[in-house]
Every structure is written in structure tokens, then in C-alpha cells.
């Protein structure tokens, strides 16, 4: 079942291979995966600098670091050299290309040089890989645990770590040393004071924590901390079948669950080499866009409450309730939809789906217009949002931003446009960008995105396809009951699917979609069994929150609140 391998043509590869003489190789990959370069730990930094700076490569955006423990892969003898792998996922905003830079690491003391100096966005990703996989990053400025607490022992995503092994945490980390390292004059305890913000604070809309050193109202240093909602998504995925992972994906970005499930299903479908029928594609696209609207509405509504504009919250939540109605009719759940399936959808959309969806649009449009009328030209909103939380284009790229926050800084990267999936290639829509990079830009980009989402929905509803919603590949979708009862083959398919689950051919993929907050990537590794070998999510919020402490430094505390809300950090996705 394995797909044919091809060697991707990378224009810069000959130069790089020449330069690093045999220490970098281009790996053969199946067509559905991204191009991959393999190097070793000693060459990594050199290769990284080349990939960033060479104009033919220009991989300026650091997307993800996906680590793998290969010790339980079939054919892998433990103790042999490459037990661990560090896969750096890179993207070039200029060339619209993804690249995986792979380093193989030994079982004993896996260590690579830190790439924080090359791509600042690598900082937290490396801490995460250290925390969960135990890969050491030499030269990292602060290689500490990130997602788990300080009392934790071991590295949870290693294959020999028991999934249920908990460690008690009885005390909070006060983060004083980290903060002191960031304050210019740590000895000066009279002029400044420490302000703890979160993890249980209303404006974090979840469980985020920032400890600040403030001079009056001004923030002189800040240290952000996450992991207060680390629910072990990746470990849980490894212990469930491919289909059972879908409910877990719902709870990543719980403001727009449909998008996560869709992204995951798409990744697995690519590995399986199956295509879903047009009706499923259309339904997925429509619901994705409704989810995007819901997500942006929560972001804007909740953020405006923090700024003191309560009315907008009610305006934002009314259309959400109505979209929930539609989702409930489709899949039976309001929030955690679990609607996407590998190979299609859980079940067909209701008969009146098209009319129903269409009837929601006027309400959404009206409520958005209400918010627009209250806020967009409002003097208070201008004072609070304009010029606060500014992120320049260069900063946004260096910090690994994607999604509305990147577009608000003037980089028009949108996966839906640049690497279309589902039905996005067949519809006409614009990618709104702003150039100011401040909170107001992020607000205005989101407002416009909602209108564009409605445009997409309208176009698809106008030619909503008929037919089945599930692929007829019975390796992944249960065959119809008549077939099971009357044909031997049907019975076998049914039996195998129920008892063994979907079997994804051994292999690896990085698949990405446009989540509500940015690029949502899944790095999946399969060993050919019914369970995923490794699931790594590239959460859009992660780099956003990592950069938060840098954005707010030098600003006011109250502006930090506005910035936090409009970056839209969702804890479920941040901590997984």
C-alpha cells in the first residue's frame, strides 16, 4: 500500500549539498508529504542559517518542532543510533513552500544545538521538546520544563513512559528567577513590583499566566508561562485508534472544534490516499467557515468585555447560539462536534442544511454590523486598540506568527489561499490584511475575515453537491448494512474495521490547514497498526503566546489585556 517515493526538486539543494559536503541529504518522500532534508546535529546550525538566509531557500517562518521517539517502530532495534528524531517544520513566506529539516539523534543523551538564535520562534518549541521528549538543546537561553510542572519526573512522550503516571504538584512556581533574569536591574526592588496575572484571571479566558514586573502601570519585564491546561493530547492520541482521536482534536481549539477535526481527518486521508466525496467537502468547508466566524466572534466579543464594552458580548453570542443550532442538527452536539470522519463525515447533513445555513447569514451579518457600528469608529476603542501591542512584519515572521495575527502585520499568508484544500480552491474570496500590526489591525482583520467567510459559505451553498458524504473505501468507512448482511466481502470489511480500526500505512506526514488562529498542522507518524504512532499538533497559539511577553514589554498593564484578547490565545490548543 505504500505510496511511490519521489525526490522533491529543491532549487537550492545542489548548492547546499555542495556547501555541506554530504552532511545534508534530500530525502525521498511520497508526493503528499512536504520536502525533507536530513542532516546531523553538528551541521544543524549551519544548515539552518543557510535555509534562512539563502535567497533561493528563504525559509523565514519557523512553524513547528515535531520530535519522535522511534524506539517502538517496527524494525527499529533499541539501542541503535537514531532513537529520536527532531523534525523542524519551516515555511518560506516568499516562496510559499514548506520544508522539514530532520535530525536523527541517538538514544543516549540526545542533544542538538538550539536554533533560537536562527529563528526566535524556536524557543518554546525547544522547551516543549525537552519537557516531553527529553531532547537537550545546547545553548538554549532557558531550557526548563514548559508544559508539565516542576515536580514532574521523566519525559512523558517517550515510548517507555507510562501514560497514566502522574506526579503531584503541590506548589506553584513563582517564576522569580526567570523574571529577575529579564529585568534590567533585578536588585532594584523599590521602584518596581511583581504582578501576577493568571492563571485564573477573567481576561485570560482560560488558564494562562504572566508574571510581570511593573513600574507603576508600566511593564518593565514579563515572563509568560503555560501548561495549566496540558491535557496530554498527544499521549492520549497514541493510545487510541485513528478515529478515536477525532473527539480529542475537538478540544484543542474549543471555540472552533470543527476545523481541528477536519484538519486531522484530512491528514489521515492523505496518508491513506483517499479522497472524500464532493458533498462532504462542501459540508466541511461550510462548517469550517461557520466555525471560523464563531471563533472570531468569541475573540472579539470576549475581548471587548475586557475593555468594558459589554453589549458586544451579547451581540457576539447571539449568532453563535444560532450556529450551534445548525451544528447540533448535523452532529448532535453544540460545542464538541466530532463531526469529521476519516473518509467523510459522521453522517449526512440534515435535509434542510442549505436553507438553514443560508438563513443564518442575515443574523450574523446584522450582529457583525452592530459590533462594527459600536466599535470600529469608536473613540474609546481607537484609544485602547490603536498603537497598542504593535508587532512589525519582521517580528511577526521571526516569532512564528500565522493566521490573523500575521496578516494584521502585513503578511498575506493564508493556507486556504496559498495551499487550497477541501473546496477553498473553487471559491472566490479575499484575504484581508492590515499593515499596522497593532490590536486594532487584528480586530479589523478578524471582522473582515468573517465577511469573507460568509462569502465562501454563500458560494458553496449556491451549488451544494448531492450524493454520498462518505468515501466508498471500506478500509476506512463501514460498508452499508445490506452489504454486510448479504455479501461475504462486506462482512469482512465490517469485521476488520470494527475490530482493528482504520489501518493507516506506515509513513509520516505534515499536513496543515488554516485554523481560526493560524496554521494548524498535524505531524503524524504511523507504524501501520490501528493506532497512531505519534501525533504532533502545530498549535497556532503557541508561538503567539510565546511572543506575548515581548509584545507587552514597555507597555501598560491595561494594554496587555487588550493584546492578550486579540491575539486570541486558546488554552486548549496552546497546552494541548
Amino acid at each position, binding site marked *: 500500500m505504500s505510496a511511490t517515493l519521489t525526490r522533491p526538486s529543491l532549487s537550492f539543494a545542489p548548492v547546499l549539498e555542495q556547501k555541506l559536503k554530504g552532511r545534508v541529504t534530500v530525502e525521498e518522500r511520497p508526493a503528499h508529504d512536504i520536502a525533507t532534508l536530513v542532516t546531523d546535529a553538528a551541521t544543524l546550525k549551519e544548515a539552518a542559517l543557510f535555509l534562512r538566509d539563502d535567497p533561493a531557500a528563504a525559509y523565514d517562518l519557523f512553524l513547528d518542532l515535531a520530535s519522535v521517539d522511534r524506539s517502538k517502530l517496527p524494525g527499529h532495534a533499541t539501542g541503535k543510533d537514531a532513537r529520536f528524531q527532531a523534525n523542524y517544520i519551516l515555511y518560506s513566506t516568499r516562496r510559499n513552500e514548506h520544508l522539514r529539516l530532520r535530525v536523527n539523534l541517538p538514544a543516549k543523551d540526545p542533544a542538538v544545538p538550539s536554533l533560537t538564535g536562527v529563528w526566535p520562534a524556536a524557543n518554546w518549541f525547544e522547551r516543549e521538546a525537552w519537557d516531553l521528549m527529553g531532547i537537550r538543546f545546547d545553548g538554549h537561553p532557558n531550557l526548563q520544563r514548559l508544559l508539565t510542572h516542576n515536580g514532574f519526573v521523566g519525559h512523558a512522550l517517550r515510548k517507555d513512559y507510562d501514560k497514566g503516571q502522574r506526579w503531584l504538584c503541590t506548589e506553584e512556581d513563582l517564576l522569580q528567577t526567570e523574571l529577575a533574569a529579564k529585568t534590567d536591574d533585578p536588585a532594584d526592588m523599590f521602584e518596581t513590583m511583581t504582578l501576577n496575572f493568571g492563571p485564573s484571571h477573567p481576561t485570560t479566558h482560560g488558564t494562562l499566566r504572566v508574571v510581570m514586573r511593573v513600574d507603576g502601570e508600566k511593564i518593565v519585564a514579563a515572563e509568560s508561562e503555560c501548561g495549566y491546561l496540558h491535557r496530554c493530547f498527544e499521549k492520549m492520541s497514541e493510545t487510541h485508534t485513528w478515529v478515536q482521536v477525532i473527539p480529542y482534536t475537538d478540544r484543542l481549539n474549543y471555540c472552533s472544534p470543527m476545523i481541528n477535526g477536519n484538519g486531522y481527518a484530512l491528514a489521515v486521508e492523505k496518508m491513506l490516499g483517499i479522497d472524500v466525496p464532493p458533498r462532504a467537502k462542501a459540508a466541511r468547508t461550510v462548517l469550517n467557515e461557520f466555525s471560523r466566524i464563531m471563533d472570531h466572534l468569541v475573540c472579539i466579543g470576549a475581548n471587548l468585555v475586557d475593555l468594558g464594552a459589554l453589549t458586544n458580548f451579547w451581540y457576539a453570542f447571539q449568532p453563535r*447560539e444560532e450556529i450551534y443550532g445548525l451544528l447540533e442538527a448535523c452532529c448532535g452536539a453544540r460545542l464538541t462536534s466530532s463531526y469529521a470522519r476519516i473518509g467523510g463525515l459522521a453522517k449526512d447533513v440534515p435535509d434542510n442544511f442549505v436553507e438553514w445555513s443560508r438563513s443564518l447569514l442575515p443574523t450574523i451579518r446584522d450582529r457583525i454590523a452592530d459590533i462594527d457600528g459600536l466599535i470600529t469608529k469608536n473613540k474609546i476603542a481607537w484609544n485602547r486598540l490603536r498603537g497598542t501591542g504593535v508587532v512589525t512584519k519582521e517580528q511577526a515572521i521571526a516569532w512564528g506568527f500565522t493566521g490573523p495575527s500575521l496578516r494584521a502585520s502585513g503578511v498575506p499568508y493564508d493556507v486556504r489561499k496559498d495551499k487550497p484544500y477541501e473546496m477553498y480552491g473553487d471559491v472566490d474570496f479575499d484575504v484581508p490584511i492590515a499593515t499596522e500590526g497593532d490590536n486594532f489591525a487584528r480586530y479589523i482583520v478578524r471582522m473582515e475575515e468573517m465577511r469573507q467567510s460568509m462569502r465562501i459559505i454563500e458560494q458553496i451553498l449556491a451549488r451544494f453537491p448531492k450524493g454520498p458524504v462518505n468515501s466508498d473505501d471500506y478500509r476506512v468507512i463501514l460498508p452499508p448494512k445490506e452489504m454486510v448482511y448479504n455479501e461475504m466481502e462486506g462482512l469482512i470489511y465490517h469485521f476488520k474495521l470494527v475490530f482493528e480500526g482504520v489501518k493507516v500505512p506506515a509513513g509520516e506526514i505534515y499536513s496543515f490547514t488554516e485554523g481560526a488562529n493560524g496554521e494548524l498542522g498535524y505531524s503524524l507518524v504511523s507504524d501501520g497498526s490501528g493506532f497512531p504512532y505519534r501525533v504532533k499538533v502545530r498549535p497556532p497559539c503557541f508561538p503567539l503566546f510565546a511572543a506575548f511577553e515581548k509584545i507587552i514589554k514597555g507597555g501598560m498593564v491595561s494594554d496587555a489585556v487588550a493584546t492578550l484578547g486579540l491575539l486570541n490565545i486558546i488554552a*486548549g490548543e496552546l497546552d494541548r
Partner: protein
Amino acid sequence: MKTPPPQPPLGPGIPSTSGADFLTTKLDVAVQWAQSNSLWPMPFGTACCAIEFMSVVSSHYDLARFGAEVVRFSPRQADLLIVAGTVVDKLAPVLKKVYDQMSEPKWVISMGVCASTGGFYRAYHVVQGIDEIVPVDVYVAGCPPTPENLIHGIMELQKMIQSGELARHRASKTFVPIRVGTDPDLSIPAYSDGVMAHMTGKKELPQIGVTAESELGAKAKADAGEGHR
């Protein structure tokens, strides 16, 4: 002179005094009645359930109808802690601190299966039910619970406050958690043995923090049925 028809009672435990313009009641009952109808919730929202909590307080489901709309984000101003979402080990000390900061009388609703039992996160970093850390009065099932289900939980709590049941248990250092589900007939007390013991006066009461999750056998279930009606 005709006697006026008997009036319906003004509140639980408050008898109507037909025709008269005063009431007699016990102070406790009046206080409990007032407390149950003016709960000040503090949402300890951590995850997806918090989003549903937002729906409950916003216009469509309107928690104000139950007198519990004054959402406070300072534990010192709240008397009802609604834990909405997964609590992980790293967050556990925070939850404990928030609970300790609330002043008596205080109640706890555990919203969603994650807060109640860890949900489908049987994993290395997730608290397997917040009753490991704080006592819980009402468990609301669902992932996330529908807004109706949470409202049911709150009404259930109101009943318990009004009946004085919780106050009595607090005084004797016990608490009586109950589970509510989509089907009220299937609601099961979490500490069934303890509850039953108290109601029948046969057994020792469990101490705060003692969990008896395993005691959900058929007998306990049947007993619970008797005990609650």
C-alpha cells in the same frame, strides 16, 4: 365573615398565614431561602466547558432567571465555585488556593466530566476529578454539559441549600455530593455509602476528601433511590 382561601406558601418552609400580613418562620429557613436564590458564582473556567458556561450566562439561557448572574472573578466575593473544565496537576494548587479564599458558606459545582472525573483524559498530567482537591456539592455530567444540564445542576444545588441539608452536613464536617445527569432518575450520589449511612444512621460518615467512587454498586444505587425520595 368569609375566611380567605388558603394562600400558596411563599417559599419552601415558609408557611402561608392566610390573610395575615406577617409570616412566621425560622431564621435558618429564611436565610437558606435567600442564599439559594442569590448565588454569586465564580467561574473557574479552564477549558471547553467554560465556553458553554459563557453561553449559560449570556442572553439565550440567561442564568439571571435563577438569581445566579452576578458572576464574580474574585473568590472573595463569590459563594459558588463553578469549576468548568479540565483541571491538570499544574493547576491543582491554584484551584485549592481559590477555594480556600472563598468565605463560608460556599458551594462547589463541578461542571463537565473532566472536572468530575478527569473525563476521557486518563493521563499523566490530569487531575482525575477535582474532588481530589476540593469538596464538591453537585457534579454535572456531560462533555460539555448542555446549558440546560448546568441549569439543572444549579437548581439541584438550590434545593439542597433550601432544605438545609448542606448546612447540616457542613456542621458535621461532611458533604453530600450528588451527580446530576440528563436523566434525573439516573442521578447517582457519588459517595453513596456515606450519604446512605447518614440518612439511615447506620454507618460512619466519610470525612471531607474521602472518595468512595467504587461504591456505585447496584445496592448503593437502590439505596440512593430510597434515600432521596
